[in-house]
């Protein structure tokens, strides 16, 4: 059993630790997103300058989503699928982190900033190559008769 004094001490430490990254302005304690597969082009890491994409990726994605979904525009720029394909990479053991885990590209920041996103309720959090393998191993009787289990 913890005494109240002990508990208070823990609490202070906990609060201090949580505040630290904010105070130290996100030094090495900030989010650590995994590296992308490759640079977008010879002179740019991402499809937009990093500062821009960090601040505005949601707007870009939203604009694109409406164009693709409602109007059938299928270009790759600013498409969520492209982001996932390039950014969600396996670790050294070849395993993929899933959305929600700190090691997943998107959650690495979103967990840190405590910003919830809906995207992965409907979109896969993995590149299709990886998803495909999991789909068939999860469901050995996949894709059979009339929607029955």
């Amino acid at each position, binding site marked *: 059993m913890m005494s109240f004094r002990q508990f208070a001490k823990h609490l202070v430490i906990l609060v201090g630790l949580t505040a630290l990254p904010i105070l130290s302005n996100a030094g090495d304690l900030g989010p650590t997103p995994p590296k992308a597969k490759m640079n977008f082009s010879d002179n740019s890491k991402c499809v937009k300058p990093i500062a821009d994409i960090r601040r505005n990726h949601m707007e870009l994605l939203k604009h694109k989503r409406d164009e693709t979904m409602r109007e059938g525009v299928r270009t790759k720029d600013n498409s969520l699928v492209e982001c996932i394909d390039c950014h969600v990479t396996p670790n050294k053991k070849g395993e993929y982190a899933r959305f929600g885990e700190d090691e997943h590209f998107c959650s690495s920041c979103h967990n840190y900033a405590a910003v919830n996103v*809906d995207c992965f309720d409907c979109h896969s959090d993995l590149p299709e190559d990886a998803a495909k393998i999991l789909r068939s191993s999860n469901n050995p009787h996949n894709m059979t*008769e*009339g*929607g*029955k289990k």
Partner: protein
Amino acid sequence: MKKAVFKQIDGNSINYWMLLALLGSFALAAVGAHFYMEHGGHYVTGMNNQIVWGLPHVFAVFLIVAASGALNVASISSVFNKTAYKPLAPLSTLVAIALLSGGLMVLVLDLGRPDRLIVAMTVYNFKSIFAWNMIFYNGFFLIVGIYAWTMLQRNLNKYSRIAGFTAFIWRLALTTGTGSIFGFLVARQAYDAAIMGPMFVVMSFSFGLAIFLLIVMATYKWTDRPLGDATFNRLKNLLGVFVAGVLYFVVAQHLTNLYATEHHGVEAFILRDGGIYTQLFWYGQIIMGGLIPLALIYHPTTGKSRTAISIASILIVLGGLIQMYVIIIGGQAYPLELFPGKEVSSSFFDGVVNSYSPTLAEALLGIGGFAVTLFMVAFAVKIMKFLPESLADEAVDPHHSK
């Protein structure tokens, strides 16, 4: 005639707080049920791809419809200038707002994505009667709220007639809109009838007044305020007329449907072969919710008994819920007619009567709507002057005060 004196209820008895606590815990249970349903998804409910609207919709639609009916007393006093109803007009607006809040809460908490409610509030498809209803509902709060204010604030009293008139028109639109939700479903045999709109209006009169009468009787009894026979009889007789009206419309609805050959199937289903739905229709909706209350209201002995009238009102509410159940669930249980004259079967339950077994979570969510309504009323009459001190005959009836 004396001016009615409005006063808050004391609301500091143990019983009062117990009542609030009880209603509060039902409301909390509804919120709990909601989180349970949203957490993993709707698979924990009895709803499925065949019965897409379940028990929560039964309660939600009932409460929303009743909301507009509860406004009747206020409308009669302001729009038709019947002074006898005036003392109860503020309470009538309060009950209306509370019922709508309860109903909408249930409706919203049953959405697949209640987190996106903001979308529903900001993006409208103006072809959709649902979107129109969103506007009707929001407007109802605003207009009835203003109406209540003009009645409670003495120097605004002169505006209450015009506010009451606006509210009256608005709520007719609201109920017709709610009824039309079903009228627009041309493909569903059970709903494809122009009579749905007006029928919902009459249903709203009856359900709303039954709930209103129950609230009046309970508050005046529990607070030891006098409730005279004049007021009581007036409300109860009105209720009788409305119950008869609902019965009339139900008969008309089914008779007209029997004229149209394409509706014979669904009519036979509800009236004769529908199993649970047929039983609910005859025993629940017609006998329990219609004929028995009528008898209680108009029988010379029971008609005078407050207990009997309370029972009649409760039966009307229960019968109303059952009627909604038959309309909403029964209407979906009957299979869609895809190929008239042919037998249909598939892996997706084509051509079979769909089954639905409601779960506890859905029931709790629905009942929570009632709890929220009653909680709002109970709380509001304590903090604001909604209730006249006395509804004794001398205080209300112009003839007595002469």
